[in-house]
């Protein structure tokens, strides 16, 4: 419970950091809106319309007060309310992240388990080679290569955009690669660790069948560090999908935020970061809960 309350100061901290840093970026939002048209007076008028001529702390106070009431403001470029945009784009990113997490969970964990069981054999090396490569490649590169191979050349999947379940595959794979590689490595390391522990040897000696050894005895504690990494990766995905979203024209939150930064669309940046930070913090909380449930020894005190 204390943890839940502890979230609030973190979120406030995040919003303050965003608020300040976004105003430190050189470039005038009024200019971003006005472009090459507009005189100096127009710019002043636009700044006034956006409330940018007030002192920073006042702007923050007003914004915070509105947020509490559920009003995240309006985009400065087209007056479109921020919250609906965050919701619809956020849903898209969530879909993508879930797909990526599914792939990570299934492929990553299986790969890690296989590697652990067949450690130091050809399969182990193959799996780990794949994992190593996966964490050493830039995301956009992976995405473009996958697109070239499976969409352009082979035509098995759509190139980009959203709409059908098939559209989820390539972006999902791209986003999942890093996490899958990471999770497979962690799973292998963790499982190796657990498999060599005494209680596992005891279970084997007792004559338990292999699957039982695997699931009942090793899984729980073996997967703990994996679950932690899992949670972190999910959080990273929610916001780190910018590159994937750009390559595959996936209308997600990451792209919205990156665009907002370039346009100096303060309300969207502020609202968006708040939402992402909130989800990240919630995911971490959930991870801690799951971990504590899985292994009572690791309850966070």
């Amino acid at each position, binding site marked *: 419970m204390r943890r839940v309350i502890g979230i609030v100061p973190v979120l406030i901290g995040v919003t303050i950091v965003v608020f300040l840093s976004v105003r430190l970026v050189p470039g005038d939002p009024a200019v971003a809106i006005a472009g090459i*048209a507009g005189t100096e007076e127009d710019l002043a008028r636009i700044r006034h319309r956006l409330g940018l001529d007030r002192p920073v702390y006042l702007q923050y106070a007003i914004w915070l007060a509105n947020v509490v009431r559920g009003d995240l403001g309006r985009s400065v470029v087209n007056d479109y309310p921020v919250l609906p945009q965050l919701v619809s784009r956020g849903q898209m990113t969530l879909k993508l992240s879930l797909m990526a997490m599914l792939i990570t969970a299934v492929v990553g964990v*299986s790969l890690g388990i296989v590697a652990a069981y067949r450690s130091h054999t050809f399969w182990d090396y193959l799996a780990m080679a794949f994992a190593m490569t996966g964490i050493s490649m830039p995301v956009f590169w992976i995405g473009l290569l996958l*697109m070239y191979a499976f969409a352009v050349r082979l035509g098995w*999947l759509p190139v980009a955009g959203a709409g*059908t379940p098939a559209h989820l595959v390539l972006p999902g794979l791209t986003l999942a690669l890093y996490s899958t590689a990471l999770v497979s490595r962690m799973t292998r390391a963790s499982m190796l660790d657990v498999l060599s522990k005494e209680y596992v040897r005891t279970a084997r000696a007792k004559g338990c069948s292999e699957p039982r050894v695997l699931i009942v005895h090793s899984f729980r504690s073996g997967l703990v560090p994996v679950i932690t990494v899992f949670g972190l990766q999910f959080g990273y995905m929610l916001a780190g999908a910018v590159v994937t979203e750009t390559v595959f024209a996936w209308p997600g939150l990451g792209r919205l935020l990156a665009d907002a930064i370039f346009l100096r669309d303060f309300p969207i940046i502020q609202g968006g970061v708040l939402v992402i930070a909130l989800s990240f913090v919630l995911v971490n909380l959930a991870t801690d809960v799951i971990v504590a449930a899985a292994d009572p020894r690791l309850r966070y005190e």
Partner: protein
Amino acid sequence: MAVRTVTIALAVILAIAGSSVQVGRGAPARDTLVVAAGVQFTTFDPLANAHPPAFSVEAAVMETLVARNVKGELVPVLAEDWRVSSDPRVWTFRLRRGVRFQDGTPFNAEAVKANLDRMRDKSLGQPKNSLWTFIEDVRVKSEYEVEVITEQPSGAILALLTDSSANIVSPAALKRFGTQIATNIVGTGPYVFQAPWAPGQDIVLVRNEQYWGPKPKVQRIVVKEIREALTRQALLERGEVDAVIDLPPEAVLRFQRDPNFVVRKDGGTRVAFLPFNHSRPPFNDLRVRKAIHHAIDVKAIIKGVLRDLSVPADNLVAPGVVGYTPDPDYHEYSPDKAKALLAEAGYPNGFTTQLVTPDGRYIKDKETMVAIAGQLKRVGIQADVVPLEWTTFLTQVRVKPDWGMYYWSWPGYTADAAYNAELLLWSENSSPKGFVPFYKNTEVDRLLSNARYITDQKVRTAMLERALKLARNDYAYVYLWRFFQITVLSKRVGGNLEVLADETILFKNVELR
């Protein structure tokens, strides 16, 4: 058990992937034209700062009183004819009858007045309001006649009325949506904008069955925002889109070699140039500017970097824009001449400076500037290329360009040089008020300010031409190249795709095979 879970999950993933093979996903429906654009769409409010792809959407949904055709001539659209009274400040427009907005509101003088009043209402704080403040009053003379009174006689009013900011929006919609008109435009045009629309979504345009003019053949148009150039290319190759309106030169090359695609090279009114800060040495010396001009091998850059998708530019505006005059001897690549001029100006060993450029805004902006820097190095000028993100660039250009040299490009807005010239050559608009980099030529100033009030188009044109010629001789800017507007179409697209001087694309005469 774990093995079973894994198998099931893998099966699920494969099923998802496999489902795509059955569904004929990809190819657009028979009656839909799908277009991919690489820019960010945020607003369609005519008064907001928008850029050519947005103009194309606006042009499909809304119309102006007068417009330019492909040849650049003025043609009547929502106004059937017009005349200026003996008092050159009063213009009377006779409006087309029998036209309705897409929401049913009748189009009449009241509607035009509502729009013109909105256009000149500075309190709105919209970027393009200041374009229209020269209008003093708008009066409804009869149901289909509008009187526009300008403060001073206006030479440019007709040209301005072809600008996208003069798109006529339904007054009922204006009232209903207020500031959110940006995402809910309603006009008189051949296509209806499907609202609600949020940035990032596909833009859907549906044929206006009540359109007053010839009905377009294509029933539905979808404009997709695809930021990654390689993705646009892939989509076109796979037939998932029918047209792409901006591609990098190397992608275009690939489609040029493929008989399944048509590469359109239109327009060419976007002129790229190098502004100098005329207030500081060494750029305040004409010889230095001339030297830089001679040091740049424009043709080599056009061939090697821009892959012949541009042509050399010899004026601030392009052919076809009022005020343009050619200068066939403008480009003379001569590093020797450059070095001689530099020595004469007191820089025998060259000098060091910065070359600031927007980053990713114009085709190959960074690459071409790096190429130019390489050429400048050969005559002793060490130019450090500084790419700036667009908003930062624009802010600093306006506020305090203490850069020596930078890169910019402007299309032929309103197909009339006055627009660009006033903002780029008239010393009245020097920083921080505007973008003129401290260039001042009193004769140019005089010509430009007088041209505003001359309604005799012949006289006015002559004045603009002369002003631009003077600026060219002054090397106010070094003109580099003109970009073609490239549209790549799949074989499916037939009919007549029209591209206007300000890069607006008209879809209304397109057909699908």
